[in-house]
């Protein structure tokens, strides 16, 4: 009996079955305190369409789907094995194809190829509003995808480049949004110099404000170890939330404010107003995303970026080479904070209102998911990951399928984090450096500044 359970194939099937059960319950109906089993029983008993072909009970649908997935993966595995064997055997046709593939891969690394790819992507992004003319979709793309991308790019500097887990990132976003409200005179607090400033004025003010807060929070806390930093930033995010939610005289309290003007400028004869129509905001935010992309990717390979990587990989060694860790960590923190503050301005001016529920800690987790999913430290990965995850979320928000409930978003995001950490800790599209780093740490050939003792727990067992 014992050997039966130790059989890897049995274990694998058991795991698959458990995951299947979990997915069935996760996508099932809601329960309640008075009917605690309603969620579970409904998950199995209810009927559900199987691609519109027939209408069996839910568990049958999921079982069939699992069989399809398992079948497909084993097919792919078999094909892969066949492919490798053929290649090894020197089969001409296969070898030729493999060679071409390798050459394509090589070319993809080439600068000109990459640039043309970027150009195509940019052209597509510019053409996008003409492709998707539905305004509710466009609004979603601005609010749920592009703004999140801005935030993810900023968090990537902190968590990806410098390796600092900042769970209170949302606080800087809130600071940006509330600064906008303050500068434009939409808060109970009178605006600076009693003037209702143009929203564009809010951009530098919010950036400076968020940056200042980042520096002020960073200088004392960035000396701490990585896990303490995570908790302290978490607490900071919670404090900012409590503040904006409770100080009615300053921030409008739990109702927030809804008086923020759209972005607009009139310099003499040139006038423009970004209004309710999402398209102008789309282009504006897209421009900001591109600017962020360019700025951060040049930062990545600059002296500062290399210092971050050095600190992330081995703080002691970096310090011995003359890199001042605290200085660079605070810098990363400030840059992250500034980008979050900036995103706050964009959101506040586009949605016209700011309310505390937007700025709960969960929001930081959402941004963290984007960074982790794409690949910490890889700008390309973060953009792609952000597009995939937030695009999917936007789709779910726009036209939710019957098995999805918007309140469950964070359940799925949390599960995604765990799954990523178990199977792809470096993210789906990691930078080469990061991937090497993770594999080195796992092989025990590189020191991990964040971890000193875990290495002692490597258990020699054949898994």
């Amino acid at each position, binding site marked *: 009996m014992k050997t039966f359970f130790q059989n890897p194939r049995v274990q694998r099937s058991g795991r698959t079955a458990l995951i299947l059960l979990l997915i069935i319950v996760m996508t099932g109906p809601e329960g309640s305190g008075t009917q605690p089993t309603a969620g579970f029983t409904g998950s199995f008993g209810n009927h559900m369409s199987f691609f519109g072909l027939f209408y069996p009970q839910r568990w049958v649908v999921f079982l069939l789907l699992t069989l399809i997935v398992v079948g497909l993966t084993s097919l792919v595995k078999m094909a892969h094995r066949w492919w490798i064997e053929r290649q090894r055997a020197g089969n001409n046709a296969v070898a030729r194809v493999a060679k071409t593939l390798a050459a394509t891969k090589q070319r993809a690394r080439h600068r000109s190829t990459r640039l043309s790819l970027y150009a195509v992507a940019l052209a597509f992004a510019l053409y996008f509003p003409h492709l998707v003319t539905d305004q509710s979709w466009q609004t979603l793309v601005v609010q749920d995808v592009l703004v999140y991308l801005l935030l993810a790019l900023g968090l990537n500097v902190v968590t990806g480049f410098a390796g600092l887990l900042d769970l209170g990132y949302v606080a800087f976003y809130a600071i940006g949004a509330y600064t906008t409200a303050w500068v434009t005179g939409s808060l109970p607090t009178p605006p600076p110099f009693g003037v209702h400033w143009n929203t564009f004025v809010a951009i530098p003010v919010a950036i400076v404000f968020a940056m200042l807060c980042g520096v002020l929070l960073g200088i004392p806390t960035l000396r701490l170890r990585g896990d303490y930093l995570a908790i302290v930033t978490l607490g900071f995010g919670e404090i900012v939330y*409590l503040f904006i939610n409770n100080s009615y005289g300053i921030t409008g309290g739990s109702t927030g404010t809804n008086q923020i003007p759209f972005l607009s400028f009139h310099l003499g004869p040139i006038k423009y107003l970004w209004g309710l129509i999402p398209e102008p905001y789309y282009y504006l935010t897209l421009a900001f995303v591109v600017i962020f992309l360019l700025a951060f990717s040049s930062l990545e390979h600059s002296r500062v970026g290399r210092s971050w990587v050095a600190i992330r990989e081995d703080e002691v060694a970096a310090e011995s080479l003359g890199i001042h860790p605290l200085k660079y960590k605070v810098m990363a923190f400030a840059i992250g904070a500034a980008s979050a503050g900036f995103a706050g301005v964009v959101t506040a001016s586009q949605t016209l209102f700011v309310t505390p529920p937007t700025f709960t800690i969960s929001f930081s987790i959402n941004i963290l998911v984007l960074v982790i999913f794409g690949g910490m430290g890889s700008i390309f990965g973060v953009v792609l990951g952000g597009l995939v995850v937030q695009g999917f979320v936007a789709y779910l928000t726009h036209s939710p399928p019957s098995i999805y409930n918007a309140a469950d978003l964070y359940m799925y995001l949390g599960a995604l984090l*765990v799954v990523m950490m178990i199977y792809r*800790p470096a993210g789906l599209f990691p930078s080469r450096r990061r991937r090497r780093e993770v594999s080195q740490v796992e092989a025990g050939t590189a020191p991990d500044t964040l971890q000193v003792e875990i290495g002692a*727990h490597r*258990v020699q067992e054949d898994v």
Partner: protein
Amino acid sequence: MSYFSSHFATLGHEFWGLLVGGIANGFIYAMVAIGYTMVYGVLRLINFAHSEVFMTGAFASFFLLKFLVGNSTPNAFESVVYLIAAVVIGGVVGALVALLLERVAYRPLRRRNAPKLAYLISAIGASYFLYNFVGKEFGRINLSIDAPYTNNTVFTIFGATVQTYYIVIFFVGVTMLVALDRLVATSKLGRGIRAVAQDAETASLMGVNIDRTIALTFMLGGFLGGVAGFLYSIPVGAVYGMGFTPALKAFSAAVLGGIGNLRGAVLGGLILGVVESLSVAFVSGAYIDVVAFGVLVLVLLVRPTGILGERLGRSA
């Protein structure tokens, strides 16, 4: 000047009442802090998902008490039996959830010797998954617990009334903490835990089963966490997001006492509970949660090893 003098007057007026409430809260924080500190002791990492252990314990007891008590008014004997049953079920479910966490969110990473950041992220993910899952299955509203006793005033001390609730917390808390202390100090399992905390590799060479010890450490911490969740939820009810704030405070307590140090966690919990309770006189209600966090930052800046120091594994 007048600001403080008036606040001190309030404090003087209500000191004993606040103290009693603070100690009661302190026991709850101490029991949760034990979970953080034990896991930190053996793995050197913060179990971010411990707040969900706390929450699930409360839910388990809620359902049991709803089944046992319902609308009836239990007599004295039934009260005690129901209370013990609720404590046990809260603890057992907490321990099971902690075990599950270890198996799913930690062990695969441990096998791979993953970087520490990965553990933190995986635990955060597990925490978000768990509490939203519970919210989905059991509703997202506050469920008020059917207390198995009536909350009478048992006696007064310096004008402060001590209710049944405080007595319950005191008895359960002291029993749990003493039992755990003895368990870790004297039993074979406790010796294993201390050995792993000191030096895992050597411990494994000496025949300590590391996987088992780590799992049991999670379970012990989870048991106390689950019970604490039940005690916490008696007056305020159980809700899916209830774990976040108390857990953050308990973590502060663990750091305050010296993380990795069992008695430090108890001391830190009690101090934090009392300080927080007394600060009611100075801080308005909405910002009361900030106090614990301020304590945490202060400790980390001034004395990161805590009051009793990080006595990892040396003794209970």
